[in-house]
């Protein structure tokens, strides 16, 4: 059997099963599971049905106290020192109860990623220690725009990108102007990783990653999007009007933003696949419990062959999705640049099966599955959302196909 787990984590290949994680990750898994059950679950139904602008800072603070806002930060900055596999395991646990809660923390880790990738001790000292203070702090990644989505992710598309946020160089500073859309945590984040195009570069060919504190003059937080799912986390616009950013807040140099973003994305996709896996698991758990207690024809539902077949298919899909994200996360934890193939495959599969499992679970519960009070339909709405961010199935298919035809590297 191929080892999918990090050799550094003291697990022999003989010990590797679907449920055995290295001790430190197992401990994280159980800790986050307890948080999800004890803190998140009692709040989920009310939060999901609250107005779009409602945000539960108390829950976020409790997650922060647990270290969920700093999982990947180096220990020297007070972080957890976990890799992407650790994040993925935590995301599955959170998403099995509430995907929106998972994304609050996941989006923060995504916003931090350019700071880590910068390799710049000054930027790291400026932005990272705040996540280990007593007060919960969030970050966000601001790339998507109204007219530009995948044009900011695919290098060959960059010259065709339209209306991209601009960065005009003035002395040792840049002046940012433009709007970002659908930005998770934008309403409350402390700082953002912001992608803007250097003036004079066609399309997004001069895309550059800037670290911008969101209390900088000229930054405005726009209206919160009224979403179908993921209502526990807030997505909104970020508006930049003549925002002056010092040149030393650039990550990776002028015009390198698209590559920084691709790297971030390939790291993140393994964790988003874990969120989809968690959503599927959450829906499955409700269906499994229902099929055990609901008696029809004198026996529990799960003893009916049609139901048994459905439950077995659902369980198989979830296990397969989990194995794929573990493989992807482990490769991402062991390679720079992160591989494009495994994370894209994991997300493509997990996104699909989460919708399928949520739908099957709803059919098993019948009318109850359609009622908001049972919490099952939330998993369906969230599953559809996960299919969009960090790569739609169409974008993932392009990434997978490109990798299939790529020549082997000689590392």
């Amino acid at each position, binding site marked *: 059997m191929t080892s999918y787990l*990090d050799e*550094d984590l003291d697990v022999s290949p003989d010990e590797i099963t679907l449920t055995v994680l290295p001790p430190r990750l197992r401990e994280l898994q159980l800790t986050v599971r307890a948080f999800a059950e004890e803190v998140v679950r009692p709040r989920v139904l009310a939060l999901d049905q609250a107005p779009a602008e409602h945000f539960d800072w108390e829950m976020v603070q409790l997650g922060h106290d647990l270290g969920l806002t700093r999982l*990947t930060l*180096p*220990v*020297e900055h007070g972080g957890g*020192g*976990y*890799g*992407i596999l650790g994040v993925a395991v935590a995301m599955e646990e959170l998403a099995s109860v509430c995907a929106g809660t998972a994304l609050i923390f996941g989006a923060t880790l995504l916003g931090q990623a*350019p700071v*880590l*990738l*910068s*390799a*710049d*001790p000054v930027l*790291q000292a400026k932005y990272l220690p705040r996540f280990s203070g007593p007060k919960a702090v969030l970050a966000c990644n601001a790339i998507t725009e109204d007219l530009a989505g995948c044009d900011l992710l695919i290098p060959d598309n960059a010259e065709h990108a339209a209306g991209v946020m601009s960065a005009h160089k003035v002395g040792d500073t840049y002046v940012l102007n433009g709007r970002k859309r659908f930005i998770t945590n934008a309403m409350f984040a402390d700082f953002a990783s912001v992608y803007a195009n250097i003036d004079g570069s066609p399309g997004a060919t001069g895309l550059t990653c800037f670290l911008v504190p969101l209390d900088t003059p000229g930054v405005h937080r726009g209206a919160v999007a009224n979403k179908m799912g993921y209502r526990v986390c807030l997505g909104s616009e970020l508006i930049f009007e003549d925002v002056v950013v010092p040149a030393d807040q650039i*990550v*990776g*140099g002028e015009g*390198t933003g698209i*590559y*920084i973003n*691709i*790297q971030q994305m390939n790291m993140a996709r393994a964790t988003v696949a874990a969120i989809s896996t968690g959503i599927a698991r959450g829906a499955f758990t409700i269906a499994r419990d229902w099929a055990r207690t609901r008696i029809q024809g004198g026996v529990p539902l799960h003893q009916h062959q049609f139901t048994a077949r459905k439950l077995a298919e659902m369980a198989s899909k979830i296990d397969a999705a989990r194995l794929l994200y573990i493989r992807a996360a482990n490769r*991402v*934890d*062991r*390679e*720079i*640049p*992160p591989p494009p193939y495994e994370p894209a495959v994991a997300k493509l599969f997990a996104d699909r099966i989460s919708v399928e499992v949520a739908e099957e679970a709803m059919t098993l519960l019948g009318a109850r599955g359609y009622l908001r009070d049972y919490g099952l339909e939330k998993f369906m709405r969230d599953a559809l959302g996960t299919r969009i961010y960090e790569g739609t199935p169409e974008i993932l298919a392009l990434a997978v196909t490109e990798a299939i035809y790529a020549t082997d*590297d000689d*590392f």
Partner: protein
Amino acid sequence: MTVFDSKEQAVGVFSQLFELLLQDETFSTRVREAGLSLRLVQSKPDFALHISNDGVRVDDITTPAALTIKMSSDNAHALWSGQLLMPLALATGKIRVRGSVTKMLEFQPLLQPAFDRYPQIALEAGVTA
């Protein structure tokens, strides 16, 4: 046209660079505490350096290393000269790493003394590009 005239010149420059880095107290302390070892594999000219708290060994490709870092010698020169930025080099695959990414991200900022010292070392070795 490559930056280095010979393997000997490149090995001399990069061995000296990492030996000096190991003399940096912050770096060497962290290397020791983390039990970190690096295998630097460079091409054109081709050679490998094994770097650990025990020192720098040339063309040792059998001793296990926690991190393997691979790049061309020209890219190595551009990197340490400050012409090639680390985030871009890593994102585009000009530098490739196998091993614990967490450790790599943790140790990158500690490499700063190497950036400070490299230009002089290269100059003294007659590297002119």
